[in-house]
């Protein structure tokens, strides 16, 4: 019974399932003597003490999860971060101002000019509705707060809620001790914090909560076979679908899990009830989200769930037949026939569906998950996003720290005590770890699993160690009181010391984890990326607020119907902060449109002018880091523009911009590179500027070279605005010359 673990302070079980733990506890509990001596003075029953400690730990963890995400608010201000959150913020603002129906039917003419975008039908509304409901609720309670504050704090709030779910999940899978550890681990795990700091108002902020809640409720439903839990998990699934596209992970993992249970012979009525009600109701509910629509019955990604659903019916049928037939031989034959027919019918149905186009094939994004090299070859627009790159080992270490080593240990404990719940957590852990390896951003999905499994390892280990340590200490204590040598315990003199040493080691590791998490949160994940900060020469903090400077200039000093062309990264920010129409934005739904912009950026000025005229562009915005040394600027992204543009318009050829396969901007750069629009707009009049002492004028600090074309003349555009550190440059497209 090494793996047998009870929470340190004893466990409280509700009446319905007390029978199992009670029998299993007995061998252990004898040694569990001493700890309550001091607490007894409080006149509380052990159970109450345990409850009190547990609740206070949970409350502390809840608060900790919230406050550790507030670094950015304290360092900068209460503001929205990054790119996508600006879109979410803008839509939430619209939702709170205009109401739900307007929001649902919103056609946005400010983006994707001249196509526009049907916002209501192309987004996951969960996040916005959640924030709006919180906002309305607070308003109703007469707290006069701004919607921005709600949006900024939504992610930390849901992160706190996630810790509660993690606790209950851990309790369900293992015991309440593991639950507590899981809550504490997930509260500060950098992998999760990276997407849930204050201001990171993104779908993932609420989606991880919804994901874990769905899993927890489903496991609970499988464990109890209760219809109520299954329905609850269906509603959690609905919430997840409404919040994030990552719901596809749930709708594939759960069927896979059911399949594994079926194969390992763990089929039960509980599973049948849980899966059927969850799947059917969850599917119907998910169809209510317009962006998802009928995908549950029509798209290839969702077919696994449906297949398992039918398979489960076959299992039930076979079970029933087996119950009726007493002859095993006859049943074997029947089984063979039924399974063959079922698989045959399923395969034919799938084939017909695929062939007739009723069932859509897998999307590129799905393929790129299964095959990490797929996006690189086929969909440059997915590959161009940095968070879609395969994960480096260092970022695993960065985001998980000791959890990376605890994870296998936890798997070991899970396999030692295999149950329906532990099988689930093992599968969740293994699949999500694979996906985390494929894409950096999916570390987020793996984080809850890694935390839970590691929590099992930590909890079980510490439990065992404390048992050893306490058993000894009790004997010595009683011995000293009685003044006589104890009868037992002298047999293993080193065991206790060893246990104490190991315990200290474990606490050292955990405290290291805590400091690492805080450090990572503070250093890496709490920067809003819209405001850049650097250290000045005297160690003081220098703020580069150029983005907002430029967006606010656009907002105030351009005509309200002006169209701004920029690379798609800045689309959401321009519409949200600049309040101007953009050609492309971060919702990369139309590859051709993006390719057109890429083509314009990589053409000569006169060609680009034609394209810009045809798109009705009034202003062009480029991001340039040559003065400040800001490296994620448009020149460094330029090759992706060329690739994406060239993917649709073959006149753009990547080799034209390279010299011997090398990308450079100095004198040795390719002639087309030196004269394309992006180069000209970035370096216009840069050749006259001395950026660094002791370097020639026109020295690009981001790339560390002197630029190759210092004499740039613009014919069809003129500089309209450049921010104080030159990070954003805006050009006005001149009207065509009068012909006479």
């Amino acid at each position, binding site marked *: 019974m090494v793996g047998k673990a009870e929470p340190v302070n*004893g*466990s409280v079980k*509700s*009446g*319905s399932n*007390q*029978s199992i733990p*009670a*029998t299993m*506890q*007995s061998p252990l*509990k*004898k040694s*569990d*003597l001493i700890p*309550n001596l001091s607490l007894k003075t409080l006149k509380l*029953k*052990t*159970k109450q003490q345990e409850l009190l400690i547990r609740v206070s730990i949970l409350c502390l963890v809840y608060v900790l999860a919230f406050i550790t995400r507030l670094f950015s608010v304290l360092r*900068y*201000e209460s*503001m929205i971060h990054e790119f996508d959150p600006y879109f979410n913020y803008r839509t939430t603002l619209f939702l709170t101002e205009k109401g739900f129906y307007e929001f649902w039917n919103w056609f946005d003419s400010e983006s994707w000019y001249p196509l526009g975008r049907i916002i209501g039908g192309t987004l996951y509304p969960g996040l916005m509705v959640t924030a709006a409901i919180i906002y309305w609720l607070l308003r109703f309670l*007469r*707290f*006069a707060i701004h919607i921005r504050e709600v949006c900024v704090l939504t992610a930390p709030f849901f992160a706190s809620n996630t810790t509660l779910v993690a606790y209950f999940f851990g309790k369900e899978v293992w015991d309440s001790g593991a639950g507590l550890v899981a809550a504490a681990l997930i509260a500060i795990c950098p992998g999760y914090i990276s997407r849930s700091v204050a201001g990171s108002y993104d779908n993932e902020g609420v989606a991880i909560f919804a994901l874990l809640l769905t899993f927890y409720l489903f496991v609970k439903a499988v464990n109890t076979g209760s219809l109520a839990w299954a329905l609850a998990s269906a509603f959690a699934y609905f919430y997840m679908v409404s919040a994030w596209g990552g719901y596809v992970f749930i709708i594939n993992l759960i069927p896979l899990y059911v399949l594994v249970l079926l194969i390992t012979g763990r089929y039960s009525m509980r599973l049948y009830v849980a899966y059927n009600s969850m799947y059917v109701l969850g599917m119907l509910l998910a169809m209510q989200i317009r962006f998802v629509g009928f995908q549950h019955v029509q798209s290839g990604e969702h077919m696994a769930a449906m297949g398992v659903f039918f398979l489960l019916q076959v299992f039930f049928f076979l079970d029933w037949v087996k119950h009726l037939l007493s002859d095993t031989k006859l049943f074997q034959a029947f089984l063979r026939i039924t399974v063959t027919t079922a698989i045959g019918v399923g395969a034919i149905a799938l084939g017909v569906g695929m062939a007739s186009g009723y069932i859509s094939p897998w999307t590129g994004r799905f393929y790129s998950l299964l095959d990490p090299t797929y996006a690189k070859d086929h969909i440059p627009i997915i590959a161009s996003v940095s968070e879609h790159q395969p994960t480096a080992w260092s970022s695993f270490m960065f985001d998980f720290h000791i959890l990376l080593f605890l994870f296998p240990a936890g798997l070991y404990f899970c396999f030692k005590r295999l149950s329906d719940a532990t099988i689930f957590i093992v599968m969740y852990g293994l699949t999500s770890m694979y996906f985390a390896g494929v894409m950096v951003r999916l570390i987020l999905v793996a984080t809850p699993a890694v935390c839970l499994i590691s929590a099992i390892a930590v909890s079980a280990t510490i439990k065992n160690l404390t048992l050893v340590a306490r058993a000894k200490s009790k004997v010595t204590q*009683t011995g000293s009181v*009685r003044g*006589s040598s104890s*009868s037992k315990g002298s047999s293993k003199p080193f065991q206790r010391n060893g246990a104490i040493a190991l315990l200290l080691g474990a606490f050292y590791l955990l405290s290291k984890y805590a400091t690492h998490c805080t450090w990572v949160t503070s250093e890496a994940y709490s920067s809003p990326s819209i*405001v850049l900060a650097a250290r000045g020469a005297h160690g003081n903090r220098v*703020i580069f*607020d150029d983005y*907002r*400077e430029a*967006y*606010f*200039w656009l*907002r*105030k*000093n351009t005509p309200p119907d002006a169209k701004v062309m920029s690379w798609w990264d800045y689309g959401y920010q321009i519409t949200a*902060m600049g309040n101007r129409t953009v050609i492309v934005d971060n919702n990369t739904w139309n590859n051709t449109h993006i390719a057109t912009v890429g083509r314009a950026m990589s053409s000569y000025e006169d060609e680009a002018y034609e394209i810009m005229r045809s798109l009705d562009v009034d202003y062009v915005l480029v991001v340039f880091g040559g003065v400040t040394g800001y490296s994620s600027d448009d020149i460094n992204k330029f090759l992706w523009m060329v690739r994406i543009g060239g993917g649709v318009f073959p006149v753009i050829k990547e080799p034209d911009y390279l010299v011997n396969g090398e990308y450079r901007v100095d004198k040795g750069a390719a002639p087309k590179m030196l004269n394309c629009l992006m180069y000209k707009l970035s370096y216009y*009049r840069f050749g*006259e*500027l001395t950026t660094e002492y002791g370097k020639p004028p026109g020295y690009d600090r981001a790339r560390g070279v002197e630029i190759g074309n210092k004499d740039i003349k613009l014919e069809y555009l*003129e*500089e*309209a*605005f*450049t*921010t*104080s550190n*030159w990070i954003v440059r805006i050009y006005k497209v001149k009207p065509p010359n009068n012909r006479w």
Partner: protein
Amino acid sequence: MGFRFDLLMFMIVLLSVPVLSNLILSNVDRRIDLTTQAVRITSTLKVENTGSDLVSEVLLAFPDDQAKHLAYLTATNNEGKGKAKSSSVSFPVDVVRPKGMHPSLTFYSVSLPKGLGKGASLTLDVLAVFAHALQPFPERITQPDIQLVVFNETAHYLSPYAVKVQSLTVKLPDARIESFSKIENTKIHGSEVKYGPYENLPPFSYSSIVVHFEANQPFAIAQQLIREIEISHWGNVQVTEHYNLVHGGAQSKGEFSRLDYQARPHVRGASAIRHLVAKLPPRAHSIYYRDEIGNISTSKLWGDPKKTELVIEPRYPMFGGWRTAFTIGYGLPLQDFLFHSEGKRYLNISFGSPINEVVIDTLIVKVVLPEGSADISVSAPFPVKQGQETKFSHLDVVGRPVIVLEKTNVVLEHNQHFQVYYKFSSLSMFGEPLMLISGFFFLFVACIIYMHADLSISKSSPSYLAKLQWDEVQAGVQQVRNIFDRCLTLHDKLEASLRDLSRTGDVQACKASRKAVDGLLKDISKDLKPLLLSLQSSPQAAQILPKVEELVAKERDLQEKLMVKHSTVVDSYEKKLSGREIENRVALQQQKITALRQEVDDLLDFIDEI
């Protein structure tokens, strides 16, 4: 300059208008200050009554196109010359429309409360401030160009009265003067242009002059400024000012080059607004400066006991025609601005903007009074449009009354204090904290009720019944636990009596205590019986029952062993055996007792865990 031509045309018409009264202006001295964007005209008028009637008003005339820019007008009586200005009295000024006057003139009447008798004279200081009186010319300039403005005035004082002697001084900024109208008696003196003296001019004389000069001071115009002043009786006056700012100078055209601007900011972009200075009251705190999209980091703050100075830079340098919008906010200590008088409270705070160089087209001042204020009245030093609305802020039920004061064309001279009187009971302050407290109170009460209430739907479902039984079992076990606690204390008492014995040797007392303990233990075992029976009858207790029974057996064993030990020791004492012998005799028993006690403790702890 077709405009000038028009004026000359209607001057001919004006000259035919009859003289209003018997007043004449014996001396007019005007000084026009063009160093800021608000044009300040200070006129010293010496008024004489040549008629026989008592005159109670003096008329001031302005052409309409000037009058619509008129922001501020006062007339003060300048009794003693020069130093004694403190004794000056300001007279009420009103718009009037005297009959028979040309419609393109606006008249203001200065009422003289005492009147001006026959032959008497009076010196009036008239200060008129005009916003938007300087016109940029040329209207569009490029970044390196300097900004030039023109100013139109009349060299002869426009008045319905005859003027005997007059002169005019135009003060220009210390910069280039492009041109100025040269008429008779024109002199230039550094940056001052002097016209006059002119003598014996009839009423409504007009002689247009134009000054064209370089003006690089910022033309910061707030098209709208909303100042919200919120009073909290917890000790704070919160002021929030929303500016909608535009550079009202010459429009910029062509490229904006950051390079040029960075290299030589005072040449390439001389007229740009780089920063503004807000002079806040002393002890201002919690100052912020932001706009719709967030905090603006380019601001500096200095504070000393006399004033707080906030230097703010807009996000970008503002060239002609560029716009921006921002909000500054600050808190002020309540006791500096809120006073009591005659049972009422009143707020006494400045009306205009703390940024002096800004000319405000529309200023809206909102004073948010605490919820429950009543009997509200406003007293302002100049006419303003008044309104009232309601604002809902934190924890408001009926909303806070808001006084809205609106005024157009506001300049520096309007930075005067105004008062808002209201009644407010101090007890109302505690309304909102009490609401919060009661809110939490009811939350906790609801939690307690939830914990204690039985909310299950079906009272007959098996799981519900099982839960009830389990609760019963737990209660029973708890009672058993208590009883054993009592037993154990009794055991301890026995041991204690033995120790007493070894100290005092009082055998009888020891025996008595044994008897007493024995009796008590018997009682306890009687109490225990019904509990055990009830536990046996409950199916839920199946797992616990063996433990409890084991416990009972062990305890009884322990009890017996203790009694035996006790009697052995007492016997030995009676036999007067030595201490060592006694110890030898009870050693074996003692060991057994210790072991038993250990087991009992273990069992009790196990029961605790349930």
